């Protein structure tokens, strides 16, 4: 059965909002990647990285994620926004 496909193109505003929810979904994945990078800094031959370096890196990433999350979360559409409702049905397992 076919669902109502909806309009092919969205208004610019709605389009922006949908990409924002995409960004919200991608943010933890970005976090995973960034937090795993220090694992690459341990090679058996070379001198291991110093704790202080990793600490600075990890807390830097952390602060960055907090800031990004604050920006994205504040701009995410509300729960009853039609733009999101449509989006949810895309995301549902259908």
């Amino acid at each position, binding site marked *: *059965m076919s*669902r*109502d496909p909806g309009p092919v193109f969205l208004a610019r505003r709605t389009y922006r909002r949908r990409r924002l*929810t995409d960004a*919200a*979904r991608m*943010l*933890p994945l970005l*976090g*995973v990647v960034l*937090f*795993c990078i*220090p*694992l690459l*800094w*341990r090679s058996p031959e070379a001198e*291991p*990285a*110093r*704790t*202080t*370096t*990793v*600490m600075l890196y*990890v*807390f830097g990433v*952390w*602060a960055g*994620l*907090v*800031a*990004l*999350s*604050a920006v994205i*979360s*504040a701009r*995410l559409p*509300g*729960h009853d926004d039609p733009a999101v*409702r449509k989006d*949810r*049905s895309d995301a*549902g*397992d*259908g």
Partner: protein
Amino acid sequence: MPTLNLLVVFCLLYVVLLFAVAFGADRAARRGRGRWLRSPVVYTLSLSIYCTAWTFYGAVGFAARSGLEYLTIYIGPTLVMIGWWWALRKMVRLGRSQRITSVADLISSRFGKSNLLAIIVTLLAVIGTTPYIALQLQSVTLSFATFAELDPTTATQPSRQSTALLVALGLALFTILFGTRNLDANERHHGVVMAIALEAIVKLFALLAVGVFVVWGLTDGIADTMARIDASNIAAWQVSGSRWIGLSLLSAAAFLCLPRMFQVMVVENEDESHLRTAAWAFPAYLMLMSLFVVPIAAVGLDLLPADANPDLFVLSLPLTQGQEGLAILSFLGGFSSATSMVIVAAIALSTMVSNHIVMPIWLWATGGSAVVSGDLRSVALLTRRLSIAGVVLLGYLYYRLSGGGAALAAIGLVSFAGVAQFLPALLGGLFWRGATRNGAVTGLALGFVVWLYSMFLPSFGPTVFLPQHVLDSGLFGMAWLRPQALFGADGMDPVVHAVMWSMLFNTGAFVVVSLITFPKPIERLQGAQFVNVFEHSNTGGSWRAGKGETEDLLIMAQRIMGAPQAQKLFSDAARRQGIAGYLPDPTPDFLRELERELSGSVGAATAHAMISQIVGGTSVSVEDLMAVADETAQIMEYSSRLEAKSAEQARTARQLREANEKLTQLSLQKDAFLSQVSHELRTPMTSIRSFSEILRDTEGLGADEQSKYSSIIHDEAVRLTRLLDDLLDLSVLESGRVNLNIQHGTLAGMLDRAVDATGGEAGGFRIQRNRAAENIALTTDPERLAQVFINLISNARKYCDAETPVLTISAAERDGQLVVDFSDNGSGIPADQHAMIFEKFSRVRQTRVAGAGLGLAICREIMARLGGSITYLPGQRGAAFRVILPLGEQMAAQ
């Protein structure tokens, strides 16, 4: 050196402050004044119960032993939180729309409200949380002992057991006081949340203060601190990749599954949008909490003796450096972390234990009937209180038995891995419609067994539960069954090993069994509801019941929710259906609503079981099955819209029909009234006309006859005028345009006037009165009230057909109302006419006495205007009327 007594004083003051805050917040919330109680900041702070004493003390110990690895415990939750759009949003929405009370309730609800699942999850949660509570008690005790050891003034060390016991008792008391105020677990515990928000601030502030002291007080700023870290044992980045990733995953899973986190995150959530703030503020909180951990650990390793317990660096560093105030602050921080965790965990676990274990057993033991008499609420509250005490006591016992030896972090990880077993069932339930109850049960059971065998039991040490030879060479000597090297996985880190195998078995069994079993209809419905919660937010499964069962349902609901709430729920539903009274039709919609309300108090599974006891089982209707089939979702939505519309139309039609009936009746009444009026006017008119014709046309009438005829004309004219006066009076009264002349007076005075005006006891008519009882002060319109009395007395005079007519007037005051009865000894009014006599132009029988039949109608209108009533009082010997008038100032002078 700070004395131990000073610490005890501070500690007690702090506890008093917490009680006061909780009490104040509860009170403000009950008076509806606590808007700030519901702010996103408070929500974020309440999430910080994630940071327990394990964080406060244990993180530094963790860092001192294995460097930056401690960060994994905070990175996991950070990632979950910034990814709230994935899972948390759905959990919170579900928690609100399905009135979920705990993580066990969520899982059981998703898989067809299965109580078996709820019991499994509850047991697992209790087993997983008990060591954690023990850990909190241990940390408070240890920190207390640290003070005691360094205090030269105390000769004897306070017993650790007694400290732990005191703390446990105090915590149980606090939790029972503020955690079981209301039965509905879905209602927020404002007091508790406010107290833990305060504790969140205290622990963050304390840890930051110690950190600042270490960096700028003990060393010369950031550069020097960095140098010290580089010089310490933990200078090199030597974290194993599997532990870094494995522990991050584990902490992320635990963050979602921990009963206490579920409690503050979902159950206590006021507003979904609070997640927006928490999405960045909580990661920021975690970051600040872990910011100074490595500096404190490095400086502690540097300055303190080698045998010092690194778990207590946060406390012992300021203490050995003579910073007494800071040490006390640090102690309060640790105390806050420990107590807030125990409080919330006890609330969450007690809800689960009482809803999923004690209540079902109690229901079954009391005959298995939900409609026996008695108040269930007190039973539920009692079990919840006992469960709280039990959970805290269990933690204390664990602490006593384990001896409080193992390093804090180790216990924490065991606990995390235990509750992480919920994750497959939880996430699978939220995102995969194919997940079945059998799959969830199998997965949980298998994961639980593997966790028990490979992690929980070995955590007690080699001799307690598992003998050394099992650890070395496996169960029954089979090497592949070695608890910490299952299937030959040698050389793995024990934690990662246990988490990996338990999660693999758990998830694998969950998926495979789900794939090969077939879910029951109610599971499929709940699955559709949960997975697609954002599309349709109502519960699945419909009930079918007969009308007679609504009363049973009301009885049951009253016992669980309390009489006023239940009656309100029922009467609201009845009003929506367009029915007056308390018993709505047991439509599927109403039963669904009722079940959801009940599940807020006793959990989904119990509520479902109780309703099915009365209603007799669910029936899955055709429409419901259509919801299961994905392709028909649209049809269902359309048909439900149609259904809603047709229900609305039925309601409108019913109202229209009623209005139409009323109009028809009014029109009939109007016709009858007009014909009555014309009839009443015609009779005197006819005689006036004929007598005036006689006077005009007849010659030679005698003076006697002339005077006789003209007095007849006069009498008839007077009667006409009276009739018109009465009609006018009635229309003024009915239209409500009457002006009341409110004055003070006594009942006796008004009755006197009425008796006088009707001619007193002349003509052999006796009136019996009790003057003593009539001495009642009134504030009313005396003219109008007397008019009513006059009417009643003259009616008795006119119509009483006894040989010696007697009218008895008795007055009394009842429930703030004046009640005056007028009863005579005549033959009374036939029963079939009782309803008629207050209507216009109604006359009981044609009597010799003329009357238009407006008197009682006027009386009724007057009494209505005065805020009282007049009714016929049946069951007396003769005709009897009762006049009721409210006493006091609240007159309905409309």
